[in-house]
């Protein structure tokens, strides 16, 4: 094409300008600029893609596609398993929505990036205060890769590469990520079974040998149970291994911190700190450690220094660990991280402070324990494990996990996941997770308990009713609930809202 004709609102050069530019370059067409690509390698047909859309058409398309999903604005969310429906204060969106942050690049040019750099320095500090560790990096991708990076880091710190010990109660997907990352490594992964919901410290000790780099314990663990993390850390140390503790940041409003439990490396999923669930990402991988391991850390670190005038400023620090300097000898291959999500977490923690963090933890904990009591009052439903828990617990369901999930769904509640679906383990066949955050109300918990107590007449267990429309129970929130959870406001609460309704939405 001599001159571009298609109009796109993101492009500038008019045909006249294009002509001028081509004259300056000394060629007669844009096509000529591409003649460095061998003719035989050029695509000689248009891409087979849907045609372009105006902003209005795109908006209509996307809203229609979004309407085919049934999410927490339709059904109240008791789902857990590593992602939680915690409340996000509007100030978080206000700051993360500033395009000076979200359209900036990695702060390599410190003089033009002090806003990002200082915010990340504050993030690192807040994470240290939250975890009781000495130093935090500026973020990793998410909770699973944070565990993997911690494992590699522990190998470097201990110079042991033979074995890594994981507890069976670690998030199954985190374990799978570690397995993938260790793919070509000659390293034995030993899984300590947790049949009673947690690991016995003695069993952990038995698994540690003299080539073990680290023990990874998640606390609260995937089943919601609290592990004897302090004792397990001590076992690791006794045998020269590091203790890696994977934590839920919200739990630290009331629970002892990884640093208090003897962790050498603390890792976690930071989604709960002000980031929406958005179907699993982008989230926030937190990694913090003891001071002596700082030079083995993966990812970016922000440091405080002074400028030429002696004024305080911030820079990317200890970059000699990173791939753009050290290449194959870098501590990790990570480059792009989760900067904007770290900014969200920074604002979230700044707003909540010690009182807010405690309150969210306390609310989640108390509602979860009320829910555990109410749900296990129902016939055929009991707690799978007799262990202390924080905001999430595992139910053992006589009628099977899927049947109970279905009963809840029909009444407008999402609970789960069914553990078998996640872990693949037979022992998890009739188990499911229930997570309760500060956003759930006593009324919702009571209604959920009623819903799962017995099959609903006329609704088959597999959830596919006669006319082929998926059973799609949707419950409207009360004004009060909606206000508390920032979701769309529904009709005033009344008992009829708990009844099963099939979808009023468009189905295809």
């Amino acid at each position, binding site marked *: 094409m001599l001159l571009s004709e298609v109009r796109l609102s993101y492009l500038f050069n008019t045909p006249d300008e294009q002509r001028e530019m081509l004259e300056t370059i000394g060629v007669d067409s844009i096509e000529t600029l591409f003649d460095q690509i061998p003719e035989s390698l050029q695509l000689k047909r248009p891409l087979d893609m849907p045609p372009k859309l105006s902003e209005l058409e795109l908006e209509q398309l996307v809203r229609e596609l979004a309407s*085919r999903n049934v999410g927490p604005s339709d059904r109240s969310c008791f789902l857990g398993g590593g992602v939680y429906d915690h409340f996000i204060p509007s100030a978080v969106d206000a700051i993360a929505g500033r395009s000076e942050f979200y359209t900036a690049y990695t702060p390599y040019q410190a003089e033009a990036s002090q806003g990002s750099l200082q915010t990340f320095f504050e993030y690192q500090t807040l994470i240290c205060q939250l975890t009781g560790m000495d130093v935090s990096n*500026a973020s990793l991708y998410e909770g699973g890769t944070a565990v993997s990076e911690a494992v590699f880091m522990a190998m470097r710190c201990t110079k042991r590469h033979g074995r890594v010990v994981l507890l069976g109660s670690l998030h199954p997907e985190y374990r799978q990520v570690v397995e993938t990352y260790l793919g070509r490594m000659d390293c034995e992964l030993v899984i300590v079974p947790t049949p009673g919901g947690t690991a016995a410290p003695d069993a952990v000790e038995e698994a540690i040998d003299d080539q073990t780099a680290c023990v990874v314990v998640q606390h609260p663990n995937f089943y919601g149970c609290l592990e004897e993390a302090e004792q397990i850390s001590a076992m690791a140390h006794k045998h020269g291994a590091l203790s890696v503790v994977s934590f839920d940041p919200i739990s630290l409003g009331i629970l002892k911190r990884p640093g208090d439990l003897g962790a050498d490396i603390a890792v976690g999923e930071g989604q709960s700190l002000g980031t929406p669930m*958005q*179907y699993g990402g982008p989230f926030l991988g937190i990694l913090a450690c003891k001071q002596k391991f700082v030079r083995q850390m993966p990812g970016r670190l922000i440091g405080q220094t002074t*400028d030429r*005038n002696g004024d305080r400023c911030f820079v990317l620090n200890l970059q000699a660990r990173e791939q753009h300097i050290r290449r194959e000898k*870098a501590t990790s*291959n990570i480059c792009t991280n989760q900067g904007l999500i770290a900014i969200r977490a920074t604002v979230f923690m700044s707003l909540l402070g010690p009182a807010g963090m405690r309150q969210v933890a306390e609310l989640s904990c108390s509602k979860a324990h009320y829910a555990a009591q109410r749900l296990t009052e129902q016939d055929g439903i009991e707690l799978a494990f007799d262990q202390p828990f924080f905001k999430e617990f595992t139910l053992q369901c006589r009628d099977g996990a899927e049947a109970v999930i279905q009963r809840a769904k029909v009444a407008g509640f999402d609970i789960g996941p069914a553990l078998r679906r996640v872990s693949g383990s037979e022992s998890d066949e009739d188990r499911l997770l229930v997570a309760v955050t500060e956003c759930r109300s006593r009324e919702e918990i009571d209604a959920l308990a009623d819903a799962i107590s017995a099959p609903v007449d006329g609704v088959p267990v597999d959830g596919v009713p006669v006319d082929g429309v998926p059973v799609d129970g949707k419950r409207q929130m009360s004004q009060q609930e909606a206000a508390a959870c920032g979701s769309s406001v529904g009709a005033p609460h009344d008992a009829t809202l708990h009844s099963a309704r099939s979808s009023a939405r468009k189905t295809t």
Partner: protein
Amino acid sequence: MRNEQATQLLFDLSVPGRCGAEYPESDCPEFPSTACIPAEFLSDAPLPLPEVNEPDVIRHFTNLSTLNMSVDTHYYPLGSCTMKYNPKRHERLASVPGLVDLHPWQSEESLQGMLQIQFEMQQMLGEIAGLPAVSLQPAAGAQGELAALLVASAYFQDRGEDRTKVIFPNSAHGTNPASAALAGFDCIQLGAGKNGFVDLEELKEHLDEHTAVFMITNPNTLGLFEPEIAEISKLLHDVGGLVYIDGANMNAILGIARPGDFGGDMMHYNVHKTFTGPHGAGGPGAGPIAVRDFLADYLPGPVVAHDEESGQYKLETPAKSIGRVRSFFGNVGILLRGYFYLRTLGGDGLKELSEHAVLNANYLKEKLKDILPVPNGERCMHEFVASAQHLQKERGISAMDIAKRLLDYGFHAPTVYFPLVVPEAIMVEPTETESKATLDAFAETIKKIIAEDAELLHTAPHTTPVSRPNDVQAARNPILCWSPACDA
């Protein structure tokens, strides 16, 4: 008008008793944590976080944001990073209920709209790549590299082949060798070939039955299309190896040339670069990978499949999958923005944007080449790498001096000192979303800077919120966390 409060640390704003968030009283007061959880697990002290209220938090971070240069405020010609305009429609649409609030453990039937979007994203990325099988899981380009190398590893293992070597040119991004090492391969770096291109004779020396993958960015990091890419691919395929295309520079060739057509077997995209997911001050990104059919079974999962009979979309893990590279589906929020972009532009629009990106780069190169020579290539693709070596030799002016002085004139600096093969490298990527007037102003400014007194440049920038930081002091005495002692 500078607000000095903005540079205060958050921790200096803390006053005991303040809080920036309020929550309702518990409606389950009969279950306090002290009654639910044994004391041995409970913390006996409040978290030592700062205590700040909402107005202070907002003013603090709003003022901090103004200390940044960003695409929305400044021209940002950072080479290899594709700092193009981030459309506002993406931000609004990625935040609609029904997308932003979906929980990953919801049932597939309740996610049909989301899964359709991700399925179509896979299809479109496969078509643009000429590599049909796509996994959207990797969280960033570097993770895409790692995932693809593990895919290659599983494929070779399946065939009973012992392949240990990953080869790359010395102009490669640092992530290439770092990913190869992480995947457990031996790294072999080639020397500098003529004009920055791969030297086929040197490459041949390393090719044998132990060669696993050749990783190459194309267009390469000098902004040039490797003229012998087809021959390179053939050499690799002849010894049973695979070719990996680092897709960082896809912005140059969308709808014009496809990695699968020029011999690539695997590639990653940087959705945050090419498809304008915003860079977010360093992330999040998304690094989907596309591979040939015979590698599809090894992809990280889950991927989205479409059952034509029922019309339903569902998640599947490929038969011989390497496993997960992260929890859950992927960096969905960024993938959504990429999807919106692809649907906005369509195939013709993508080709057009690449044409404008290449036109802008060649125009700016032409405007600058007399003062900042470009050692390699007569013309460029979407970016070019100039050298300040002559200025360094004659007047002691470094690439860094020019970069820093540009900040004073309101331009973000180009990438400097990368790739390593060009001395005093200045790597400029204008992108397609800049006007001729901006490019002209940038070129004029560079001219002006080069005419300035060398001392003025050594001490630049002079007008930014801070002047050049003392990196040596930062590294010698790392302060990575605030403590009250920091303020002393």
